[in-house]
């Protein structure tokens, strides 16, 4: 009986902690939005230079790996599409699946997972280290709001840069897929791209970009939430970093499925 009670107690504690963490994330988001709009009136604006520095770190510095992954995804989709459609002799329609799945699904998802691993972990580790070194306390006692100074620029950078990366991934993936399909089917590149543009609607692209923006927000909030809640020194930093990546990727995949379902029904 005692063991059963302990299980229920553990479930209850974890649920309460989950609500607590998401409440904290919501308050971070609210506070960040507030500082974006009213910071100037309180002479504490969200610094554009900080925001650009974060954009460089999260977006521009990730370009090489983003291009490599996008090209690989495009090729992989082309290979699988030609194989599966080839079973029905419908290889010529591969462009439809590639175009729609890249723009609506793969680009935002893969870029989200990439940035969650690359930048989400960095955000959590950075904030955790700053918390342990009392740098966050130092900001607070200086009268500098840490959310305005640290969190808001990171969130803006992620919300802006992830759609940019997703858009780039669209172009690179489709181009890579086009090269493979055209080479395999002996088709001209121009006609492949023409067909792709015919099938793609602006809402498909906007759907993917909107999702990427939302994933950026999730990555930022989860990274900050974990980093700020660190305890236990260097070991704690490692723990929250891992936790942040796992949580961010899980949140991205689950929310992607929910958004996908809602947008098609």
């Amino acid at each position, binding site marked *: 009986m005692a063991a059963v009670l302990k299980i229920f107690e553990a479930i209850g504690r974890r649920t309460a902690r989950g609500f607590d963490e998401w409440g904290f994330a919501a308050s971070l988001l609210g506070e960040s939005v507030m500082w974006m709009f009213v910071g100037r009136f309180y002479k*504490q604006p969200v610094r554009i230079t900080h925001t650009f520095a974060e954009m460089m770190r999260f977006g521009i510095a990730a370009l090489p790996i983003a291009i490599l992954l996008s090209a690989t995804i495009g090729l992989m989709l082309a290979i699988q599409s030609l194989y599966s459609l080839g079973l029905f002799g419908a290889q010529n329609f591969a462009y439809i699946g590639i175009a729609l799945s890249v723009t609506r699904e793969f680009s935002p998802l893969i870029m989200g997972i990439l940035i969650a691993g690359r930048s989400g972990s960095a955000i959590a580790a950075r904030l955790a280290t700053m918390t342990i*070194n009392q*740098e966050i*306390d*130092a900001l607070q*006692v*200086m*009268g500098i709001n840490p959310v305005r100074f640290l969190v808001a620029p990171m969130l803006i950078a992620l919300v802006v840069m992830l759609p940019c990366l997703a858009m780039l991934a669209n172009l690179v993936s489709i181009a890579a897929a086009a090269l493979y399909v055209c080479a395999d089917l002996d088709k001209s590149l121009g006609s492949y791209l023409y067909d792709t543009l015919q099938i793609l609607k602006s809402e498909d692209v906007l759907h993917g970009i909107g999702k990427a923006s939302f994933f950026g927000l999730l990555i930022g909030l989860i990274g900050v939430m974990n980093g700020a809640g660190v305890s236990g020194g260097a070991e704690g930093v490692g723990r929250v970093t891992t936790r942040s990546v796992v949580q961010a990727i899980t949140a991205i995949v689950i929310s992607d499925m929910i958004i996908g379902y809602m947008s098609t029904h």
Partner: protein
Amino acid sequence: MSVAGPTPHSTETETFWHPTPEELAGRPVVIEVNHLDWSFGPRQVLFDVTMQVHEGEIMVIMGGSGSGKTTLLRHLVGLMPPVPGRIKLLGKDLGGLKSLERLEVRRKIGVAFQFGALFSSMNVADNVKLPLRELAHLDEKTMDIMARLKLEVVNLSGFGHLMPAELSGGMVKRASIARAIVMDPKLIFLDEPSSGLDPVVSSALDDLILRLREAMGISVVVVTHDVESAFKIGDRITVLDRGRVLACERPEQIRVNTNERVQNLINRRSEHVEVDPEEYLRRLAGD
């Protein structure tokens, strides 16, 4: 015990003056703590703490490990959840302030943390300039000059380009003090300024604190367990023990205080604890 006149305090190179009790009594109160209790869950760490700090005074909060001095400091600088009516900082009740008003009060204080809390991504000069850049809205040249001045005050001129990781322990503490005073605060808090430093560097830091008070007329709250340093710099010393204020007196009064625990602390005597062997074994066995 009363002290008749100002007490000169001599170091090898400089003589510093401590204000008399009468002088201090006539000055405005900058910190007022009234009957502050605080618990972390079931464990109470502060019991009915009451103290005052006057303008221009150096108040040392002294106590052993786990005495509650860091918790008290965190309350004083507003890093703990506010308790209405218990702490007044520069005339403002911290518990009654909205978060933006609290930010305004914090701009008038400076804090140097135990391990410096310098931002590892910025060099020393940028660390010192940070409050100016974020709060004062000055042009870059003026900020450079002000940062250089403060680094000069703490004997760190010429080290502004170094990253915090390249500094020694004493230099980190001094850089942290430079950042704490860069906005010309009315009140600064120093958390364990001499911890981890050798006696010579520690003594130099004490001189720096005394010089700062003389030059800037600021009030200083120092949290330390370094008895020598406390007696050297403090106008008054508050002795905390297990979360309770045992004494809040001038150094010479603390020396002759009859409380055994105060004497144990200043004479570095370990407390004699009677251990019941039966009880000890029961605890070990987890009964």
